[in-house]
């Protein structure tokens, strides 16, 4: 009663939609294996092997060989490119890029050629296989399982492991300290935290350098710029370090010096803080409108380097924590929880900006005991 229209007939203009993963109608057309006799000289049953007609195979062979030839040329091209661009020329980024393109392009061609050739080989020269094979039966039969468990328990009993608890327990006991040994051995991978995260090289009277230079900052460098901002480090010149200061010290002592116009200070600046036993309002620890904050974000430690002059907002570009420089660097937006610690500053006899002590709180990411002395 129905008009059959399945793949294997392949006749008719309205072939049904092919289910993904099945052979195309075209592939099936050429199925010529005599299903009656399963031995056709191939490794698998004839009914599971759809052999291509000779002319398709011959065409496949040609196409595949063409791809392999192309791959060969690609491989030669790779070797040639290696020597065309001498090693002392690739330091020029432009030439380096040409070298990269020549090497990479020829390698791509070689790889693609081999891939394409092999695919044509597998799809047009080899038969299309649809081999059926059984999945393993899971689980094992009760008999096998029983036999195994019987054997295993007999063995365990005979060995004495189950029957001689003293020996068993002392063996386990012997393992315990050895298990701890690798953990103990890791102890010297680093020092204990102590108060290392709470102290920085800043101390009373220490001048500051513009970050990346050895130029000490004078108050007037900022005083003339009502919205100025300078990134600064302690003035340390240690010959052991190319920067003059170790990266560890730089990482925790870097500050932002910001000039805030007189009228823009907010209430947060009236908060009392203590520096080296001396108490005073936050505003007292600034100098002529110049305030210093740690540049390291209290969220996870990126440098909060973006400063919006008109709103006095300090923005960390990593996770967008935003601090108000005119309001004790309080968090106004974002995931950070506590303000950037303030560095008390003043000016020395020669007019250079100096620290008046260490930060008001540990700089950098918040940690468990940051608020404890």
């Amino acid at each position, binding site marked *: *009663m*129905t008009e059959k*229209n*399945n*793949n294997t007939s392949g006749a008719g203009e309205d072939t*049904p*939609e092919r289910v993904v*993963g*099945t052979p195309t109608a075209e592939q099936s057309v050429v199925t010529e294996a005599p299903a009656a006799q399963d031995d056709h000289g191939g490794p*698998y049953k004839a009914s599971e092997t759809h052999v291509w007609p000779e002319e398709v195979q011959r065409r496949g062979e040609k196409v595949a060989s063409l791809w392999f030839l192309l791959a060969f040329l690609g491989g030669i091209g790779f070797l040639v490119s290696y020597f065309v661009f001498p*090693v002392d020329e*690739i*330091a020029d*980024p432009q030439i380096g890029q040409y070298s990269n*393109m020549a*090497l*990479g392009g020829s*390698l*791509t061609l070689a*790889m*693609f050629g081999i*891939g394409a050739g092999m*695919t044509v080989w597998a799809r047009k020269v*080899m038969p299309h*296989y*649809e*081999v059926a*094979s059984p*999945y*393993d039966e899971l689980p094992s039969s009760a008999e096998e399982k029983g036999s195994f468990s019987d054997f295993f328990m007999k063995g365990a009993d005979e060995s004495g492991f189950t029957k001689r608890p003293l020996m068993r327990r002392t063996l386990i006991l012997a393992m315990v300290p050895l298990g701890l040994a690798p953990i103990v051995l890791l*102890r010297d*991978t*680093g*020092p*204990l*935290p102590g108060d*290392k*995260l709470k102290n920085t090289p800043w101390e009373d009277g220490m001048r500051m350098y513009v970050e990346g230079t050895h130029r000490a900052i004078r108050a007037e460098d900022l005083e003339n710029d009502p919205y100025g901002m300078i*990134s600064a*480090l302690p003035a340390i010149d240690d010959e052991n370090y*190319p920067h003059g200061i170790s990266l*560890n010290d*730089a*990482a925790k002592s*870097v500050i932002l010096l910001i000039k805030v116009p007189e009228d823009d200070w907010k209430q947060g600046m009236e908060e009392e803080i203590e520096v080296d036993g001396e108490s005073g309002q936050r505003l007292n620890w600034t100098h002529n409108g110049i305030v210093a904050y740690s540049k390291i974000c209290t969220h*996870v*430690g*990126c*440098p909060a*380097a973006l400063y919006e002059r008109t709103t006095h907002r300090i923005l960390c*570009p990593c996770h*967008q924590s935003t601090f108000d420089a005119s309001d004790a660097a309080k968090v106004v937006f974002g*995931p950070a*929880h506590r303000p950037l610690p303030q560095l008390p500053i003043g000016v020395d006899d020669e007019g250079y900006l100096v620290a008046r002590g260490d930060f008001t709180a540990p700089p*950098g*990411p*918040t940690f*468990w005991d940051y*608020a*404890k002395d």
Partner: protein
Amino acid sequence: MSKTTQAPKALRGVGNFIDDRFHLAKTGEKNLRKVFPNHWSFMLGEIALYSFIILLVSGVFLTLWFKPSMVEVIYDGSYERLQGVPMSEAYASTLFIDFEVRGGFLVRQIHHWAALIFVASLVVHMLRVFFTGAFRKPREINWLIGVAIFMLAMIEGLFGYSLPDDLPSGMGVRILQGVILAVPLVGTYISMFLFGGEFPGEDIITRLYMLHVLAIPALLLGLIVAHFMILWHQKHTQYPGPGRTDKTVVGTPMFPGFAVKAGGFFFFTFAVIAGLSAFVQINPIHLFGPFTPTSITSGLQPDWYMGFMEGALRIFPNWFDFSIFGYAVPMGVLVPGLGIMGVVFGGLALWPFIEQWITGDKRARNVADRPRNAPVRTGVGVAMITFYGLCWLAGSNDILSETFSINLYLTTYIFRVLVILGPIVAFMVTKRICLGLQRRDRDTLEHGYESGTIRQLPSGEFIEVHKESSEETTDVLASKPVITSTALADEVDDKGVENPAARKGKGRLRRALAHWYTKDNVSFEGVEPHSGHHLHHSKDVEKESAAH
């Protein structure tokens, strides 16, 4: 077919040599006859394997020159723009690979691209396995191994791209350290031990290098080998179709078909990676400059697979931070930095067992589900993707803000809402789509497919002629399993007494979940293929209409 040729003498010699020592003839034949079902989606895992091989090979090449040292040097290499700049030896030696080793730039880019594609193919491969239920018994252990591989691959990638010690990657390490510091009680200790002191210290690159080239690859290799041995032993799942059952697998045998196909596919994978490395620049560290802990550029982006954590860190608010006896617990760092990762990987690892607990299905499944036939699972999967994708997008909120001229803070608020609403909406929409597709499947099964031919009946009525689907299609459609749960079946026993276990808290939860898991489903019960009343066939049209 020509007569089978006899093996050449040399080959026989080698074969005999091996068999004399290992007795492998029988095992060898059995394994070469192993059958791999055909489907494009089964190649996703292959991409992961091949990119892993490329990673191993290209990585070995890079170690010939890379110096995992944080000793500060003044650069005097041949890249002019950075001459005289202080930098770590790690960064300087990476510049050496880029500008003083022919092909060094290319191999470094191949290594980086292969890493991106490795993780990407792992993710897509896992999604395939998830959506088709291929993680079900007996393959739960292989799923867990897969989750472990995914997690290690991410960490491996993070450590790897940190090695050149350039500005953006150093900032990634800083963020990692910031997250570690947030861990209550032991955070500062872990950080001190890992970094050999304070950040950045002088040890971290050396240690990450050891982890990146030795420890983690060894673990990955071991897990990948285990993954394959299990796959080999249990055989691949397959999609429904004629002759394909839980007992029989149908596909291409290892030898000769699959071996050549897979070999060709390896070269394709390599070609794509090489092509990208040749023409699409990635991680140009010479443009970024060396790391210093005091500088930063805006628009920083991690490699894509770390993006979801970056996004989570950006949008998670500080509202839940608290102090206990003066000790800080920064939830705003802990939840996105560690919690989200725990939810993603923990959820992935637990799902097979959760699903099995809900349905009580303890049978071994070798035929994969079509995703539409498991609407709740598919919905959960899409909700998961949505959550991940939104976190990932949020990791670029500054770039989105700039590109689309949206206020930066507004993007954060939008993402905070979307990560909660998005997955819920995605779940509901996906489930409805699945049910719609099921309904269409039932129609097709019952009525055949629309042929596009319009016929006029003698009565004047126009009809579209439906034609019978192929045996293949019918088979696939009719294979739809009925989703049930033993929790629902046990509700009342034959005497009308409620199952006591179902009344306790855990039983009630299970029953509720089972109800949720099974309630929406298009029943195929009683549907006979091609039995529908408007199955009109060209030659029967007149007959049928006459009968009406």
